[in-house]
C-alpha cells in the first residue's frame, strides 16, 4: 500500500479540478440531513459528518432506474436503451462501511452468474475515495462484520484525517494510478504516518458496539422454525425504512411507466418488508405475515447471503438502528439469536 498526503486547505480546489473531468458525488447537506449528490463545486462537499441519511448505493443502484424506453409508432415498436455515455465518476467522502457495501453489491450485480449492465456500466467508471471515521457513532458496529472505521475494502483510495492534512492510502491499482496522475498529492513524512496509525488505533477503540457475528450463521442454519420468529416481528411496522436505507439491500421490482403509446420500463427498489413483495398473481402469499417477512430480512442478510456469497449482507453502518420508527435494533436481534 502506498501512502501520499493532501493538505486540508487544498481539498476544495482539488475537488474543483476533479469536477471538470469527472462526475463527482459527495456528501452534501440538504433539508437538514446528509445525502450523496453530484456536486458542481468543491466547497459543496461536507467533510465532517457522521454518515449520510441515505446510503450512497443509490448512485450505482438508483431507487428508480429506466432500463429502456419503448414507443409504438407508425413503423411498429421502437425500443431505446440507455447509452451509458456518462463521464467517469468519483464518489468522494464515502465511509468505509459504505465502501464495503459496494463489494457486496459487486458480488450481486457483477458475478459469475449474473452481470447487470446497468450497474456495471456505472461501477466500472467509478473511483471510490473513502474518508475513514475518526469518530464513529454509537450505532456503528462495522468491526463486528469484518470492517472497521478505516477498513479499505471497496475503496480505491482511503483518506485518513490527521487534523491538518489527509494521509491518502492507495488501496487498488486504480487508486495508485489516480494518485500518480494528480499533483495535489504530496509525499508523506514519517511523522504523518505515525499520526495516521494512532488515529486509526483510537477510532478502533471508539467502536463500542459489538456483536459476535461469527456464530450467527450456524445458529440461523437451524432456526427457520424457531419460535423466536413468533415474537421478533411483533413491533415491526412492515415499512421499508430499514431496507431502503440499508447500503446492501438490493432487492428490486420492475414496473412499466406507460403513457399512451410510449413508456419506460423501470427498475425500482423493493423491500422484503412489504406484503406485496411476495404476493403471487394467484393471490397466494408465501410470506403472508410480518413474521415471515422479518425472518426473511434477517435470514437473507446473515444466512442465505453467507451461503451464496460467503459474507454477511450487512456492513454495520447503523442506519437501520438510527431510523427504525419503533427502534427494532438489529444488534438486539442478533444478540437474541446468539442467545438461542
Amino acid at each position: 500500500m502506498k501512502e501520499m498526503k493532501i493538505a486540508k486547505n487544498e481539498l476544495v480546489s482539488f475537488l474543483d479540478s476533479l469536477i471538470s473531468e469527472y462526475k463527482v458525488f459527495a456528501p452534501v447537506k440538504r433539508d437538514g440531513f446528509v445525502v450523496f449528490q453530484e456536486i458542481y463545486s468543491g466547497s459543496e462537499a461536507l467533510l465532517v459528518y457522521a454518515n449520510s441519511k441515505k446510503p450512497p448505493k443509490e448512485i450505482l443502484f438508483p431507487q428508480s432506474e429506466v432500463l429502456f424506453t419503448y414507443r409504438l409508432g407508425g413503423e411498429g415498436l421502437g425500443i431505446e436503451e440507455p447509452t451509458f455515455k456518462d463521464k467517469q465518476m468519483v464518489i468522494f467522502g464515502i465511509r468505509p462501511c459504505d465502501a464495503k457495501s459496494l463489494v457486496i453489491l459487486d458480488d450481486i450485480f457483477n458475478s459469475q452468474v449474473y452481470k447487470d449492465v446497468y450497474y456495471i456500466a456505472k461501477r466500472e467508471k467509478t473511483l471510490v475515495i473513502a474518508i475513514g471515521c475518526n469518530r464513529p457513532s454509537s450505532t456503528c458496529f462495522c468491526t463486528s462484520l469484518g470492517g472497521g472505521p478505516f477498513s479499505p475494502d471497496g475503496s480505491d483510495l482511503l483518506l485518513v484525517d490527521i487534523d491538518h492534512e489527509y494521509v491518502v492510502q492507495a488501496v487498488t491499482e486504480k487508486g495508485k494510478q489516480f494518485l500518480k496522475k494528480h499533483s495535489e498529492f504530496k509525499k508523506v513524512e514519517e511523522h504523518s504516518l505515525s499520526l495516521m496509525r494512532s488515529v486509526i488505533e483510537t477510532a478502533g477503540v471508539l467502536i463500542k458496539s459489538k456483536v459476535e457475528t461469527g456464530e450467527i450463521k450456524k445458529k440461523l442454519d437451524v432456526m427457520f422454525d424457531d419460535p423466536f420468529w413468533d415474537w421478533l416481528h411483533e413491533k415491526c411496522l412492515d415499512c421499508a425504512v430499514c431496507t431502503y436505507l440499508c447500503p446492501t439491500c438490493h432487492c428490486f421490482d420492475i414496473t412499466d411507466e406507460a403513457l399512451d403509446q410510449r413508456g419506460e420500463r423501470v427498475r425500482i427498489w423493493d423491500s422484503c418488508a412489504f406484503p406485496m413483495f411476495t404476493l403471487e398473481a394467484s393471490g397466494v402469499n408465501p410470506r403472508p405475515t410480518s413474521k415471515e417477512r422479518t425472518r426473511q430480512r434477517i435470514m437473507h442478510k446473515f444466512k442465505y447471503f453467507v451461503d451464496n456469497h460467503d459474507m454477511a449482507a450487512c456492513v454495520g453502518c447503523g442506519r437501520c438502528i438510527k431510523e427504525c420508527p419503533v427502534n427494532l435494533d438489529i444488534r438486539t436481534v442478533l444478540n437474541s439469536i446468539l442467545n438461542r
Partner: protein
Amino acid sequence: MGINKMQQPGQKVDGWKPRIIAFLCNWCSYAGADLAGVSRLQYPPNTRIIRVPCSSRISPLLILKSLQHGVDGVLVSGCRPGDCHYISGNYVARRKFAILNNLLEYLGIEKGRVHFAWVSAAEGKRFAELIKEITEEVRALGPAKELVKKQD
C-alpha cells in the same frame, strides 16, 4: 385515439385548447347534458364526459389522476340536493368534495382547475352555460401544470 394524442400534457403550444373531463351522474347531470344535446344547444367541444352512477362515486383519486395525466380541468356534477336517485349520495359526496376542494387549494393547485356543480335533468340550458363558463375559466388558467406527470 387517446386524449394524449392531441397534444402533450402540460404544454402550451400554438392552438392549445383546454381539455376538460366531466364526471356526470347518470340520473341528473348526464341527462342534463343529453338535454343540451337534443335541444341543439351550442357549447365548447373541449369537454369529455364520463358517466358515473352517482356523484358520490367520484373518488379524489379519479380527479387527481385526471390532473396527473394532463387534463386541464375537471368537473364533477351530480343531482341537486334532494334529488339524488340514491337518496343521499350527493349529500355524502358534498362533504367529501368540500374537504378535497379546500385541500387542493391549500396545496396551491389553482382555483378553477377542479369544479363541482349540481345540474338537474331539466337543466340542459344551464349545462351548456356551465360548460362554457368552465371552459373559459380553464382557458384563462392555461395548461395544467402542478400535478402533471413528467417522465423522469
